[in-house]
Each structure stands twice: as structure tokens, then as C-alpha cells.
């Protein structure tokens, strides 16, 4: 798989997490996961964890490698 495809997939994963964040299907669900965690809150916590994973993938596959060199070669640096 090429670097460009991997980068697109990483960004695609971010988009999926962002869409899943709008969990309207759980809007009125008052059930408790593990007996204490409201299911809506539990799902949103899962979104936070998935966001961390998604950003790790973006850092790995879509990192702007050129930016450091560009910053260092500046007129005032």
C-alpha cells in the first residue's frame, strides 16, 4: 500500500470517528453499561479513545515531513 493511500485511510478513520460521534441512535437510551455507566456516556468515551487511535495513525502515515526543514531554513530562525 502506497504512502498516499495510507494517509488517506488514516484521515478516513478520523472522518468515521467524527461521524460516529453523532450517535443519535443512543439519544434516549438510559441503560447502564456494567451497571453504572450510562450507555451514551460510555459510547462517547469510546469515541475519545478512537480519536486518540485515529490521531496516532494520522501522525504515523500523514506527517508533514517537510515542515521541519522549511521552518529551520527561515530568514529569522
Amino acid at each position, binding site marked *: 500500500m502506497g504512502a498516499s493511500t495510507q494517509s488517506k485511510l488514516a484521515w478516513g478513520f*478520523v472522518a468515521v*470517528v*467524527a461521524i460516529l*460521534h*453523532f*450517535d*443519535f441512535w*443512543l*439519544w*434516549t*437510551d*438510559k441503560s*447502564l453499561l456494567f*451497571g*453504572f*455507566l*450510562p450507555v*451514551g*456516556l460510555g459510547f*462517547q*468515551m469510546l*469515541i*475519545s*479513545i478512537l*480519536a*486518540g487511535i*485515529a*490521531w*496516532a495513525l*494520522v*501522525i504515523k502515515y500523514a*506527517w*508533514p515531513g*517537510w*515542515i*521541519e526543514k*522549511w*521552518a*529551520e*531554513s*527561515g*530568514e*529569522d*530562525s
Partner: protein
Amino acid sequence: MDLPLLPYLAQARSASPLWVVAGYLGLLLVFSVFSGRVLRRTSSDYFVASRSIGPFLLLMSVFGTTMTAVALVGSTGKAYDRGIGVYGLLASTSGIVHSLVFFLVGIKLWAIGKRHGFVTQIQYFRSRFDSNGIGYLLFPILVGLVIPYLLIGIVGAGAVIKGVTRGMFPDTFDAGAIPPSITGAVVCGVVLCYVLVGGVRAAAWANAAQTIVFMIVGVIAFILISDKLGGMKAASEAVANNESTSELLAREPIGKLQFLTYLFIPLSVGMFPHLFQHWLTARSAKTFRVTVIAHPIFIMVVWAPCVLIGIWAAGHGITAPGGNSNAILAKMVGTLLQSPFLTGLLTAGILAAIMSSLDSQFVCLGTMFTHDIVVHAAGKDRFNDGQKVLLGRGFILLVVLITYLLSLLDPANIFDLAVWCFSGFASLFPLVFASLYWRRVTREGAIACVLVTAITWAILFWIGLLGPAIAGERSSEDFLPGGVMPVTIMFAASTIALVGVSLLTKPMSPKIIEKFFVVQD
């Protein structure tokens, strides 16, 4: 469930927790003396820590800065009022959007700042749009938006200490609690001490230490409070079994359109001047990596326990003192944890979260005033390094004094005030994004964007919060024109102004564009 709250409150309580808090504040004062001795005395170190901050310190300082009183005090209060939906409104959304902004905007601004030697946001915009005027236009708007942000911290600290000390001084203060006016003065004083001495580097160190303190203490508070409520299961079941609070377990109290349009709010981090300054302190672009990845997880660690504590408080019929839901966390800590040491430690942890935002905001105000107004108007060589730092300190003192006086007016609910403040910054996000990614954006388009943001914000703020507050009609309902968050209207208006005016006016010169846009080989 036996909650001996009333008998506990009825008697004068030990002031021991305050000694723990005083000890913590004393440690920060010692830190200020220490930082004054070891830190480099150059303006570059005072304002951008000589661009040498590493990954761990950047993560902790950026996270500590973005987690204000809203994260602990406001989230608990809002969950108490509206239920678990508050987590999805700001916490999980921020985990996605903040990191997106750090990646797309923060890293690029760091590179531009390093390449061209910028210290402030306004220096960047002046140079990017080749306009002095945009600096003078942005300065009062950014300062004006930072002031409510500072207010959130000062009011939050006051609410916490008032809640925790209730009944401690029955012969001295109303309800036996230390009034917010005293807490505000002490907190501002302590933060000013280490910020005025050590600048942004001291703020970054203090932020890191305070972030560790409030994260650990937050988890401890959660475990102890849930234990006092009979365990997590019993605490949540009490909410479910209480007819008046069971809806807090779902998101019915929050509109779907409101939830959807909350997505705009976290974009505010792209325009926070204090965050811009923290970005510039990074040693390299790679320094951002840990921040981008860990930020959503850290938010979860802080917010989820607070949201649960908020709904548990409602489910157990614990009333917010004076109907002020800002005080609910403090009340839970003060009344359920009957160990003075733990209560003091937890209170110090909450104050740590608040102060870790105030310090960065104080430093950035001084930096902006010194660089964007005084040095810009008087010339680069008019003042030496020492004089620049002194000027920055003077302006910080003035703004803190104004904010402190405003805090005495007992402003709105912390969460709501924060959302208004974030909405203003978020509506300016199109400006920073276009400046980085759209070559066709023009000076006139940028100015139109800023003006339209200021006007729409002022109108909606008046209709939605200030007008009703002055008329004594403070409503518990959120202000949702057409069912959407006000930021939606402001954001749309500022974007239309930016794009429309840019397309109608002459493009920026290619020389300017080349300076800011990277040609990738």
C-alpha cells in the same frame, strides 16, 4: 442511602482543608521565587521560552491550558443540570477537533513562527495580510474575548472555595463560607507572582505540575465520592430510580441540532492567543506528536468522572448552594469527604486546573500588549529587553484588575459564559485557516471577517445573555436561535464575509504568498 449533609453543614466545620490549600498555594509561591532565579532573563525566554519546550512539557502545558474551570467545575455543574450529554457536547468533540486544529493549524503556525521569528498571533496576521490595521483591530477583540475566559477561572475558583468552606467561618462570613471576592484576589495574586517572574516558561512548568496534580486528584475524588455514595453501581442506580433525574442518563435535555452545531465550539483553540504562544514554545514540529495523540484521552480522564459526579449529585437530591450549579462539585467534595486533608487536597487540585489556564492567559496578554502595541508603535529599538518585560507585566496587572472587578458582579453560569467566549474565538477560525490554506484570501476579506465576527457576537451575546441578565431575567434554558448554537450563525457570517470580500478584492501580492506557503518538493 444515608447522606448526613444537613447535620454536617449545620455545625461549624474544621478549617483544616484550607491549610492544605494554603500549603499548595505556598508551594507555587516558592516556585515563583525559584523560577525567578534559574530562568534566563531574556525577552525571548519570557515570551516563547526560547522555543525549546519538549514533547512532555508541551502536552501538559497545552492540555492544562485548554482545561479550564469548565472542565472540572463547569462540566460537573452542567451534567447536574442537563445530564451526560455534556460529555458529547464538549469533551469527545474536543478530542477530535482540538487535535485536528493542533495538527492542521498548530504545527504550521509553529513552522511559520519559527521561520519568521513571530512571537504573537497578531504579528503573524499583520505580516500575512501586510496590514498594520488588522493588528489594531484584532488586539481589542482578542483581549475582549480573553477577559471572559479569565472570568471563568476566577469565578470558578470562588465558587469552589465558597462551596468547600461553607460552615467553616460562621461568625465571620455569610453562610460561614469564604466569599469569592477573597478567593479571586488570592488566586490572581499567586498566579501573577509566578507568571510575572518567570513568563511563559514558568507558566509551562507550573502548568505541567498542576495538570498532573488535578488529573491525579480528580481520579482520587471520583473513587472516594463514588465510595461514599455506596459504590458506582448504587450511585448510578439512584439516578435511574429517581423519576426527576432519570432523564440525565440520556440526552433528551439536549437538542439534536444543538449537539450537532456544538462541533463549531472547539474550533476556538485555533484562535486562542495563549495557545498560539504555547505552540511557538515547541522545540520542533515533532514535539506536537504526543500532544495530538494524547489530548483526547486526557480529556476523557478529566471529564468522564466529573460528568458522573454531576449526575450522581442530582440523583441523590443534593442541591446546588443558592441554585448555583458551579458549586456542586465543591459541595460534593466538601460534604461527602469528611477527611480535612483529602478535602483540602481535592480543592487544591481543582484550583490547580483553574490556575493552569489563568497563567497562560496572563502571559499572553502581556506578550500581545508589548509586541503588538507598544513595540510595534514605538519601534523595535526603543525599549531594551528588561523594559519590554516590564511593559508586559504592567498590562497584565491592569487586565487582571479589570477582570477581578468584573468577577465581583457575579457573572453567569461558568459553562455558559465559557461557551460564549469560545464562540467568539471559533468564529475567527475561518480567518486563521484561510490564512494558512487559501492563497486567494485578501486583507480586506480578513478585516471583513473580524468585523463581522465582532458585530454578530456582540448582537447575539446581548440578546442571549447580557440583555436578559441586566433585566434580571437570567434563564436556565440555553439560547438557541433556530435550534442551533449561536456560534453557527457567527461562524457562517464570518466565513461568508471572508470568502465574499476576498473574491471581490485584489489578491495579495505573490511575494507575500511565497513567504507563507510551502512549495513541497
